[in-house]
């Protein structure tokens, strides 16, 4: 079965700076369960790319295996996508990024894909500060294999079959902070207003950008007693701030009084504008961000928004000093030393 979207659109849809309407950013029709949080996130990605005037073909969509990892088929149909193997998206993204530093690498993973089978690669891609967006569609379970608890399920959380999770859940945000990720955000699939600017900012961040999005699995983990259900999240959500991503040279309009606002300049000239900051928390200070996460956990709050950013972090290519020209565009004459050089090497081996 193939899924082809009906191409009926209102004729005067708004265009972005590139002249594209939002449907230009869509993908094929989703085959996920109706109401799955993942679909809302795909929608947010589509909107973010549209608003950020992204050329879809300059994006590479990378994913592992799972319901979440299928979603790249459902957005940006003009981008190449790579649905790799379970838990190994980070390595494939690393190789792709090494080959061509000029594309945007948009990685999508699940909590099983990231926090269990893929934990090793997840940890190491952060360590290397690969320039990519790493978005986890976190539902606390393995959707595609029918609802087993995942490693991010909270201790005490109950799943649809009534099992209570006995083990500590892995908090990917705290882990990302611990490992030194330069951009760490958390959100909820039901909060598009927050998710869209977060995704835009993550794409602008020149380094590893982690967005952990709680994305309820309506089929296996949306029951009473689950801490990853729509109801539970809505009851416990606590935003660190309201958040705006301001592209380059846009005038900043703010409804909030000074003192409650913080602006963070990004490398490409754009700005992150945070309003209504939570007290005693500074998103540019790592230990303050770690503290905020710890406190939220103690209070059973689900903290969302931009948790931490270090706009100065150096991505892998800058760390290892690869050429500014993407490696996949270097010509044979640059790469091959030729027979003369070989004659010298031969002489040294005699």
């Amino acid at each position, binding site marked *: 079965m193939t899924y082809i979207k009906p191409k009926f659109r209102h004729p005067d849809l708004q265009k972005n700076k590139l002249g594209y309407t939002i449907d230009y950013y869509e993908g094929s029709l989703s085959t996920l369960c109706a109401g799955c949080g993942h679909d809302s996130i795909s929608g947010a990605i589509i909107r973010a790319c549209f608003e950020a005037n992204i050329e879809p073909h300059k994006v590479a969509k990378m994913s592992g295996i799972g319901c979440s990892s299928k979603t790249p088929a459902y957005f940006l149909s003009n981008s190449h996508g790579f649905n790799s193997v379970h838990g190994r998206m980070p390595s494939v993204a690393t190789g792709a990024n090494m080959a061509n530093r000029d594309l945007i690498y948009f990685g999508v993973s699940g909590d099983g894909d990231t926090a269990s089978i893929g934990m090793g690669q997840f940890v190491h891609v952060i360590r290397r500060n690969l320039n990519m967006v790493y978005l986890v569609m976190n539902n606390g379970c393995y959707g595609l294999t029918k609802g087993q608890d995942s490693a991010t399920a909270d201790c005490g959380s109950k799943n649809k079959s009534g099992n209570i999770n006995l083990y500590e859940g892995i908090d990917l945000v705290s882990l990302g902070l611990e490992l030194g990720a330069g951009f760490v955000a958390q959100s909820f699939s039901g909060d598009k207003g927050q998710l869209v600017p977060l995704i835009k900012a993550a794409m602008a961040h020149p380094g590893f950008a982690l967005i952990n999005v709680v994305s309820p699995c309506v089929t296996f983990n949306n029951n009473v007693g689950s801490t990853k259900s729509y109801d539970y999240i809505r009851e416990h959500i606590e935003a660190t701030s309201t958040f705006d991503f301001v592209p380059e040279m846009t005038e900043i309009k703010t409804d909030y009084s000074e003192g409650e606002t913080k602006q963070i300049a990004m490398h490409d000239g754009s700005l992150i504008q945070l309003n209504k900051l939570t007290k005693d928390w500074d998103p540019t200070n790592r230990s303050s961000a770690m503290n905020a996460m710890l406190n939220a956990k103690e209070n059973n709050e689900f903290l969302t928004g931009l948790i931490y950013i270090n706009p100065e972090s150096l991505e892998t290519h800058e760390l290892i000093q690869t*050429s500014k020209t993407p490696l996949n565009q270097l010509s044979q004459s640059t790469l091959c030393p030729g027979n003369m050089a070989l004659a010298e090497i031969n002489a040294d081996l005699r």
Partner: protein
Amino acid sequence: MNINDFVVRFANVNGTGSASANYLFTKAIFRMGVPVTPKNIFPSNIQGLPTWYEVRVSEKGYLGRREGIDLMVAVNPQSFAQDVASVKSGGYFLYDSTKKLAKEFLRDDINYIEIPLMEISNSNYSDARQRQLFKNIIYVGALCELLKIEFNVFEDLFAEQFKGKEKLIPLNVTALQLGMNYIKEHYPNTLNIKVERRDLLKSKILAEGNAACALGAVYGGATFAAWYPITPSTSVIDGYADYCKQFRIDKETGRKNYAIVQAEDELAAMGMVLGAMWNGARAFTSTSGPGLSLMNEFLGLAYFAEIPAVLIDVQRTGPSTGMPTRTQQSDVLEAAYASHGDTKHVLLFPSNPKECFDMTADAFDLAEHLQTPIIMLTDLDLGMNDHISEPYEWNDLRQYNRGKVLTAEGLDAAQQWGRYLDVDGDGIPYRTLPGTHPEKGSFFTRGSSHTEYAAYTESSDEYRKGMERLLKKWDTAKTLVPSSIVYPSKKKSDTGVIFFGTSTYSAEEAMDKLAEKNIHVDALRLRGFPFDKAFEEFVSSHKQIFVIEQNRDAQLKSLMMIELGTEASKLHSVLNFDGMPITADFIFNQIASSFKAQVSNT
């Protein structure tokens, strides 16, 4: 007098600087124009355990290992018992006589050469490190005199080795002379073996296979290497890094026209290579057996989703950690069928440094042309030992074959493009790279079943069609892998011998020995998989075939039975799997005794 035909073995302690002294000895014989082949026999240890270095000198140019040690240079009392025992009758045992040799090490049938190496060194040098290092040079000096190697050959070698550190030259020359003088005084003209200058090597070079692979990767245009350290493959990446520093730093910016990532494990290394090649860079990894096992899942993805990759497997003695510092050819089956489901992979079997260089460079063309992983199977013997080889060569007119990749113009011109559509009838579809065209050519790469247009499918017909096309591509690969080399015998023979990789040297020598005994057999050296036409013809045109391999389970023989349906009864295995490089005597004995048995049966 035995000229230019003997084996010297050095018994040292790991981590005492003996390697460079021993290499100096090899290089000196090489400079005398005489074929020489050294083998490192080292422990999986950094310091303190016994390690050996064996050098075969062969006027006839036989470069395989040979059993029977003519001269043992024993500097490690830990291994004296074994070292004394391994000298062949009539041979020599040279040892450090600073400490008296225990009675149990005395044999009537061998000759002892006593040099108080430590004493000489200690009385000439005060620094502990110098005492250690120069002790090694002193025994090389002794060998220089004993074997009549030209002194000025060493002078030249020191001058080259210490270019820029000229102060060290006289120090080394003096140490060498200490050894020479001791021999002149105490053992003048003692040995019945010696080296005599020849001009047998012409333009040949002395190189390690791993370094040759590394150089091949640079010449083949690899811009990215991902790897995880493992003996004996590590020096492939080390070599790549060294050559890249030499050739790939942009002069203006100082930036690198390459990237190397030490991955968290071999799974990740393989994933990175796939990501890079999917995105249009030439990338490779190198590993050994355990790493190859970890790469299996990704290799299946690459086969099915048709992503190029280059993997250099420097085989070692398995299974599991096995003997990690010994050689074997035991990953053949694993590499051929790596991964679950129906998968098979293109293999390359180099047998000398020149081929390591050529085949590595070619592997990138093959991988991109065939859009599939190319696995090169070398081994520890080839990778980590110096081998005499034809010099490297590069045709400056050669253009990389980047395979069927559509550009933006190509996409605009294409009538109807499908990622997995077999337009040309060779089973190889056209691919596109990310970022090429705003509206055409994007597709979703996946390991799940896909249509010719790269859409997800669970249709049995579509799946079967895809799998059958991969077989068509496999047939195309048969015409592209390096062809088998046939050695027809002087007399017509219905017996064939097949070998590959590092068995080549000893197999060639064994053929000569067999011919001397009037046993004439045709031979074939396999260089690639799938089997090419010459291979198939050779197999079908011989009544019986000896298959020489360095593994226990006759893996190549299995491969022949699986892929060609060759009857088991016609295949006789010659199997060496003790971790030491196979010898000509071993091959000769097995084949000759089989012939004898056949003669007596008829």
